[in-house]
């Protein structure tokens, strides 16, 4: 007996492949990768914690996270994650900071002055010691022109952190500061690549 089989070939593959390809268009991949990598960078920045001295936070890293956005460059199919926050680059690269508008840098040396500049404090005076020059402020019993005791609220800085003292050392004056870079303040390129690949794998099913 002879027999024949008729095999019907239907192209189900091409529409499925086309659908996959559509999911892998540069625009779609950028939409998958950009938000995921930006979120990862923000999470990393938030994990950098507060200042080493344990002083009340100035929220530097949350500010950096809020300033992080992503940018799709259509011309070369890239995604750029950008942190637009002054100070992040300095922490990453390190380097020497020198004064621009003044003769010296004023480094906060007290939780009262941390996150502040000398202009925030009325009545600062310069005190030179063998250990260097400092900007100081008199005690909180300073009187105004009418002889009334000025409240601490007018003394500037973080009033809740003030202690009663005749003299408060607020800033040390220095000619320059050299800081060591710390590349761990942002995620590595490998880490971001991993995030991107994981998200693409998840999204392009």
């Amino acid at each position, binding site marked *: 007996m002879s027999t024949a089989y008729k095999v019907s070939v239907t192209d189900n593959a091409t529409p499925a492949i086309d659908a996959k390809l559509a999911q892998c268009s540069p625009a779609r991949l950028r939409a998958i990768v950009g*938000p995921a990598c930006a979120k990862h960078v923000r999470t990393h920045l938030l994990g950098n914690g507060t200042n080493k001295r344990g002083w009340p*936070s100035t929220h530097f890293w949350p500010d950096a996270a*809020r300033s992080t956005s992503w*940018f799709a460059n259509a011309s070369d199919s890239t995604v750029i994650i950008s942190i*637009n*926050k002054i100070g992040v680059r300095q922490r990453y690269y390190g380097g020497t900071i020198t004064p621009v508008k003044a003769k010296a840098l004023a480094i906060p040396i007290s939780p009262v002055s941390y996150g502040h500049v000398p202009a925030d404090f009325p009545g600062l005076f310069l005190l030179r010691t063998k250990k260097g020059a400092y900007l100081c402020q008199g005690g909180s019993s300073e009187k105004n022109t009418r002889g009334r005791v000025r409240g601490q609220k007018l003394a500037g800085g973080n009033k809740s952190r003030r202690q009663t003292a005749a003299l408060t050392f607020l800033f040390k004056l220095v000619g320059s500061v050299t800081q060591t870079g710390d590349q761990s303040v*942002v995620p590595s390129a490998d880490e971001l690549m991993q995030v991107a690949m994981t998200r693409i794998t998840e999204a392009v099913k």
Partner: protein
Amino acid sequence: MLDAVPFKEAIANLQKKNLLPLNLDSAQIRQLEAALRRQSIFSADTTITGYLEEIKKTVASIIEPKQVTREGMTQTVTDGFNPATARANLRATLQRFGYKPDEAIAGTIKDLSSDARLNLVVKTNTELAQGAGHFIQQNMDPDVVDEYPALELVRYEEKAVPRDWEQRWRLAASVAGDPAAAAALELNGRMAALKSSGIWQALGDGEGGYDDTLGNPFPPFAFNSGMWTEEVSRKEAVDLGLLDDDEKAEPAKLDLAELFA
């Protein structure tokens, strides 16, 4: 590492804003149309237009610091205000305009030159522009909306006395009629909702009687909230019960043209 690329959506939002001198306190300002507040730079009891202009410039500098080469230097440095120098600049501007607080309010939040007030002005206006910028990025591209259909409310800053955002979430979910958002919190401990949910505007409107909010469906939602939003992927959103796997995702209902030029 590359030089930073400008956060163009945040910058566009700030640039679109008009100056709105007001002789109103914060309660009276809340009575103004939300759209007007969204499109304006203002501050309670602040009538000096030149000062508002300086606030706008200062915030622009914080949002978009520049890489510059200074004379005699070979490497670039980042130039712009940080919160401390911004505060000092605005205080100096007030002095130039002859501002002097009444003794009764000196040093308080009502004193335009106090640390507390300047911090609030700088922080709020910076975060509003950044929040609007993120909101635009989250909602403008249909592919992004499809891949990340939801947002999660998360804490960015620890506070000594944190406000009860979970309670606000419950009330806002109720007002917005979004049981899925309420369930995401109750069942998964996450304040997550679809981008198209009315819960975001309800949070910004302070539904439930909160008077510290800013009237926007994007963070910071309220003064000094410390809260922000992060995008939630489709897979997570499905797992949280916010939408079905094959359901079409929709962007927020706010007209984005309101937010930028």
